[in-house]
């Protein structure tokens, strides 16, 4: 008797193309709402302090990841910081909104104890250095999301 493998060996496989299309609404929570409102309305970056660990976390989270205490104390941070690490993206995944090549990195804002991930702009991709000083550049039209900061650019004199 003919087995399936023999029967289908020369037939073209059937592949169904399709989509998963789903709209989402993500509530950022009361504390993070303050962060996004400050970005949008005042071009200010705020973090939250854990007095137990003596650390400032940005973007702010309502529970300390080290000591598990609830956090409330908001702190305004400078929009300047130091680049801790970075990468340069050379390909276009289907969901990416930036044209490659582009760089993004983790920045330690002055006064913060955590990294802040964002895109780097106005920068020579061949001349990015770890330790470089950078500053946040805000968009003119802001909406209350992380892209209200358009990118971080090198501080004058830091190249």
């Amino acid at each position, binding site marked *: *008797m*003919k*087995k*399936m*493998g*023999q*029967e*289908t060996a020369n*037939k073209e*496989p*059937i*592949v*169904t*193309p*399709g*989509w*998963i*299309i*789903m*709209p*989402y*609404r*993500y*509530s*950022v*929570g*009361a504390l*993070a*709402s*303050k962060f*996004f*409102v400050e970005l949008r309305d005042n071009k200010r970056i*705020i973090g939250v302090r854990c007095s137990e660990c003596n650390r400032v976390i940005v973007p702010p989270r309502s529970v300390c990841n080290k000591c598990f205490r609830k956090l*409330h*104390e*908001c*702190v*305004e941070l400078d929009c300047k910081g130091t680049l801790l690490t970075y990468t340069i993206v050379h390909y276009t995944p*289907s*969901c990416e909104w930036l044209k490659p090549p582009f760089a993004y990195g983790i920045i330690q804002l002055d006064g913060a104890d955590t990294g802040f991930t964002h895109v780097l702009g106005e920068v020579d991709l061949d001349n990015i250095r770890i330790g470089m000083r950078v500053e946040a550049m805000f968009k003119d039209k802001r909406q*209350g*999301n992380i892209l209200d900061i358009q990118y971080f650019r090198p501080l004058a004199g830091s190249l």
Partner: protein
Amino acid sequence: MQQKTTDELITQEMLLKIPYRWAAGEYVGEFLRELRHSGRIYANKCPKCGRFRCPPAPVCSRCHTRMEEREKWVEVGPRGTLLAFFVAEQSFLVPTTGDMLEIPFSVGVIWPDGAPVALWHKLEETNPDKIKVGMRVEAVFKPEEQRQANIFDILYFKTV
């Protein structure tokens, strides 16, 4: 910094839109090919315990015996008996297209003549008062030149 209270709660909207390509596989692929090529619906039968599967499957989930023989495929339908049905009267987002479901949308669980299996498919009739468990239905296929080896090669089941 003085802690300010803000009443505004931020909710961010985003859209997930991911393309996929799903391989039907050897058995379901052959089932779909038969829909296109011959306008026939097939089931296969376990050589050991006799349990049928539609669409055909490679292994019997009851006795774990392989169901590899192509000649053991059995044609079922095109007529059948309605075992159960539902009619959607509220619309929902269809994740495969991003469009809203056109309502009323009725689907039957159909026992096609020829083997004790159950197939889900669209019913032509959408008025629940005119649909009865136990009623006879028949598959309506697309014309051959329009068939594409997918489940829509059967347009719907009509009341007989």
